[in-house]
Structures are given as C-alpha cells and as structure tokens.
C-alpha cells in the first residue's frame, strides 16, 4: 500500500534509458537536469513535457507551454491577454519596476499568468497557468485580474476552472495593490462556488506566499507536481526568523501530502489525463433547465437564482445541472 501516489518516470523503469539522451552536464543550460545532470535535446524536452526522462525531475515550464501541453496542441483562446502591468506606485528598488516589466515582457511573455479557454482531452474548461519566469511568477494586479476574469469566463461557459501555480508570492513592486489581488482571487472563487462549478488546483514549483495563501490552497481537489515547494513562508525565512533547522524536504509536495495539504502528487506527464478524468467524474448529467431553475429558486431564493435567471439562455449548464429533481411547487410549499 503505497503512501504516496506518485507516478515517477515510468519510462526509465521500463528500460527506456536510451531515450534519455547523453548524460553530459552542460552548466547553465536549461536542458541539463540539475538533479542527475542528464542533458536533453529541445525536442526531447518538449516530448517529455519538460520532465527529466532519467530521474523524473520536473523542469520549469512557461505558461504557454502549460496551455499547449494541457490542450494537447489543439490551441487555446486567451482571456484578458490585453492586460499589462501598470506602475501605480512609481516603484523603484535597485531598478525601476517599469524596467523590470519591460525586460520580462521582452522575453516574450505578457505577464506571470495566462488564462485561456481550452479543452483537455475533449473536456472544455478554463485554465489559468502561472509562469515563474515572469518576475518570479509574482501576483500583481494583472495576475489577479486575469485570474478573476478566468473564473468569470468559467461561470459564463459553465465549465470547471483549473489553475497551475508557480509563484514567489505577491508582487512587491505594486505594494498593497498587489496584496489585494489575494482578496480579488477569493471573490472570483466565491462566484465560481455559487455557480456550483469545480476548482481544480495544480501546485507547481514553487507555490509560495500570497498565492499559496489565497486561491492556490482552495482547490476542490489539489494536485502537486513532484518536488514542488509549497509554503507560505519559505524555508530560508523560517530558518532566519526562528533559528529552527528544517529538514531537507521541508515544504516539498511529498511532505505536504503527508501533512494533509495535497490530495495527490502527480507526475506532470499524467496531468492532462488526471484532470480530464476528474472533470469527467464531476460533470453533472444534463437536466431540464426550467426544472433546475425552479430547484435553485427553492433552495436559495435570492441572488444566486436571480443571477442564474439572467444568465440562463446563454448557458449550456453542463456543470450546473442539479442532482435534484424537485418541482416548482417547492417554492410556495415551503
């Protein structure tokens, strides 16, 4: 009975070592495994979802790579892609914030999160994927706004919301406005919850600070990638503050599973299948819409039903079908 549900590098177990390519270490090369020093060609990396084929180490991925991977290359429709970072505090530390943003944008990404509508193995959903390469995946106003819009599109399209996080926390250069994005993400998740739609989380390395202390820890089901650091305060801060000596695996996904904070540690190569499977399980069977609305009215009587009534004509209700079959008579009969 295995305690950890980790699927590690089955390729290697099956003797596919040949697939792993030469094992020369090439320093500074982002295709060299920092764990076992194997080196891979770019096409090998992409084919293996940026997982080391030898030791299972999970390399960082950009948000675009995430969306390409989950959609199986079938494309995705971006949400809030026009949003860009502002500089509300005219913030300067060792470098002006605007310059940091320009430098990050120059590398091709538009922000530390990309949200998109897409299908994972044929199941429609909205995905908000973070990108550690963009200013440490920090959550500023654009991250909060894109996340909120992602949730709103999920409600409008009546599909689950999935998020993959990789973030050092709040974006300090936007000051307290960055902090407020935590609350904004909570508001968005409450709208999703009121619509009865699932929120599935994937915690990638690292998920820390304000991201972990807001939407990332509120998944209905929460997966983590192997070896991902998951923490509110990082190990270094804790050691400096409390002078505690922490174990080597402190805050890592496998240990967070032991402490009850993660439902499963899932190999990245299994993510599309696992997420599609979860969505399949959670999908409500189709129901008669009027009956469903009557049931909703009877249950809550207030804002939720009113919002539903407005939104009704445009929705497919795939996920909002009630498992109830109560009649309209319930409204007056109670």
């Amino acid at each position, binding site marked *: *009975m295995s*305690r950890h549900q980790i699927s590690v590098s089955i390729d290697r177990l099956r003797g596919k070592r040949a697939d792993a390519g030469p094992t020369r270490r090439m320093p500074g090369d982002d295709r060299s495994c920092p764990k076992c020093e194997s080196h891979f060609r770019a096409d090998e990396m992409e084919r293996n979802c940026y997982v080391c084929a030898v030791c299972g180490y999970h390399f960082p991925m950009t948000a675009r790579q995430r969306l390409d991977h989950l959609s199986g290359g079938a494309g995705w429709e971006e949400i809030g892609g026009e949003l860009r970072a502002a500089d509300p505090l005219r913030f300067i530390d060792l470098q002006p914030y605007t310059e940091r943003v320009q430098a990050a944008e120059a590398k091709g990404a538009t922000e530390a999160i990309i949200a998109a509508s897409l299908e994972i193995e044929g199941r429609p959903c909205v995905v908000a994927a973070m990108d550690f390469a963009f200013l440490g995946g920090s959550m500023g106003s654009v991250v909060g706004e894109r996340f909120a819009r992602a949730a709103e599109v999920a409600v409008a399209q009546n599909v689950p919301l999935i998020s993959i996080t990789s973030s050092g926390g709040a974006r300090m250069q936007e000051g307290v406005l960055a902090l407020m994005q935590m609350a904004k993400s909570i508001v968005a998740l409450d709208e999703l*919850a009121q619509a*009865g*739609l*699932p929120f599935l989380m994937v915690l990638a390395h690292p998920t820390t600070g304000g991201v972990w202390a807001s939407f990332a*820890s509120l998944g*209905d*089901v929460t997966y983590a990638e192997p070896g991902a650091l998951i923490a509110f305060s990082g190990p270094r801060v804790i050691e400096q503050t409390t002078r505690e000596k922490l174990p080597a695996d402190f805050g890592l996904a496998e240990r967070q*599973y*032991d*402490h*009850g*904070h*993660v*439902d*499963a540690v899932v190999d990245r190569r299994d993510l599309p299948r696992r997420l599609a*499977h*979860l969505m*399949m*399980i*959670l*999908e*409500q*069977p189709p129901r008669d819409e009027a009956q469903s609305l009557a*049931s909703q009215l*009877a*249950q809550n009587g207030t804002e939720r039903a009113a919002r539903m009534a407005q939104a009704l004509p445009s929705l497919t209700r795939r996920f909002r079908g*009630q*498992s*109830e*079959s*109560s*009649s309209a*008579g*319930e409204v007056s*009969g*109670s």
Partner: protein
Amino acid sequence: MSVSTHPSGRGGRFVRRIAGKIAGAEVVSGDIWDAIQLARHQDRPYPLDYIARLMPDFEEIHGDRAAGDDPAIVAGIGRYHGAPLAIIGQQKGRDAQDRAYRNFGMPSPEGYRKGMRLMELCDRLQIPLVTLIDTPGAFPGAQAEEHGQGGAIARSMMMMLRLSVPTVAVVIGEGSSGGALALGVADRVVMLENATYSVISPEGASAILWRDAAKAKLAAAAFKPIAANCYRWGIADAVVPEPEGGAHTSHDEAARFLDGYLLRTIRELQAIPRVDRNRQRHERFRRLGAQREA
C-alpha cells in the same frame, strides 16, 4: 435484486429470505456471535473493494488541510451510473502491514475532518454522499484527543445533518460507538445482512460491564447488535442482502447487491424536494429512542 425496506415494506425475495431471521433473531444468541464474526471477517469487503466495483472511475482525496491525512478514512468522488457520487468510508487493512497503516479502521480527527472537507464539496457541487461504516470505534490515542476527537465526531454529525444533498449511510461491517455514528447521520441508514451496529464493541462492553475481558460473547448476546434487530428498532431503514455465507465469499456479488440498493435509493431521495428531505432527516433522528412516562 431486492432489499427489505423500512417502514414502507417494499422489497422482494430478500425480505422473504430474511423474514425468519428478523422475527426470531433476538432469542438466538449463537447467531449473533456468528454475525459479529462475519461482520469482522478478514476477507470481508472494505470500502475500497466496493468502490473498485461500483465506481471504476474514482478519485481519492487526501488530507484535512490542517494536520495530516488519516488512512483509516478513505474519501473521494467517483462516477456512479452517469453522475458524480461522493463516498466516505472507514477502511480496515487486510494484512498485518495494511492493518497497522489503516490503524485497524479506527479514525483520528484528521480523518473525520477529511470527510467534512468532502461534505463541504458535496454541498457546493451538489453531489450525493454515501458513507460506508466499518470501525471498532474512533481511535483512543493521546494525540487524537488533543486534536479534538470528540468535537470532530460531533461536527461531522452536524455537517451531515445539514447537507443539502441526498445522503445514504451503509453499515458494511461493524459499526461501533460514536466513531461509527460520525458518518451515520444520513437520509437513509442501511445495514448489510451480517453487519452490526452497536454503542460499543462486545470486548469493550465485556471489560466495562462484566469487568472481565473474556465475556464478549455474553455482551454480544446482550446487545444483539445485528442488522435484523436494528431494522426492528428503526435504527436501520433497510437490510441489504449479502451473498450466501457472507459478503467475503464474493466481493462482486456483495457489491452488486449494494449497487442495486444505492441506485434506487439515491434516485428516490433526489425526487424529494430538498426542504422536505432535510426535514425528514431531522425527524428521523429526532424520534429514535425508547422511554416511558412516569
């Protein structure tokens, strides 16, 4: 398949088959001890055995988001006849290693809190809940106490009572003490033919009431905790048949019987308006008991 139901009295051949048992069980104490042995049979199906057969598409959740994950409780969501269904069950181990890992099916507060996490999800996503009860009791450990074993059981009952979705509790093995009832406050409470439901294990009662750990058989005869009696007392709404000889003789057949009962019952419950269903759930537990007036 068919089951005996209470109080509507529906059911088919099984009602006839166990009718004699229901009428006469109280006097045959040997039968009671036999049932207790069957309820604890080491090859008896456990929640994961039923889940594998009822819901091949199943996703287990782990952890209470506060202190840990309790392997004595399994919880998750699966695809059941074309719709989502949530299950929380007490899981014993089959071999020595697994038994220790599962803590002999004795849950800690972390386990009940994992269950409550799933209940909250059921409420929000409108997913019916089935609980599978099989425990000698909640774990009597120092850390379990300090993490609030009593409060976890009480809150689990309260959350089940308040759930807005249909709920079915099935005693599949031994249901002992508050550790069992924590998962038992459902719209329908049903027992497998050889399951038991009791305020305490016979061994526990023996040590306390007879001051002699060896009087478990006497205690069992006094408690009479078998399904037929619980059905008569109104504790169980139905008795689900097991394969001849007991559920351990065929996990497949045991699962088929349970499947038939669950499918029909969940649909029945879904047809009841939520407000009525919750009122009936309240009334069901409000009226249980036996007292006289001076």
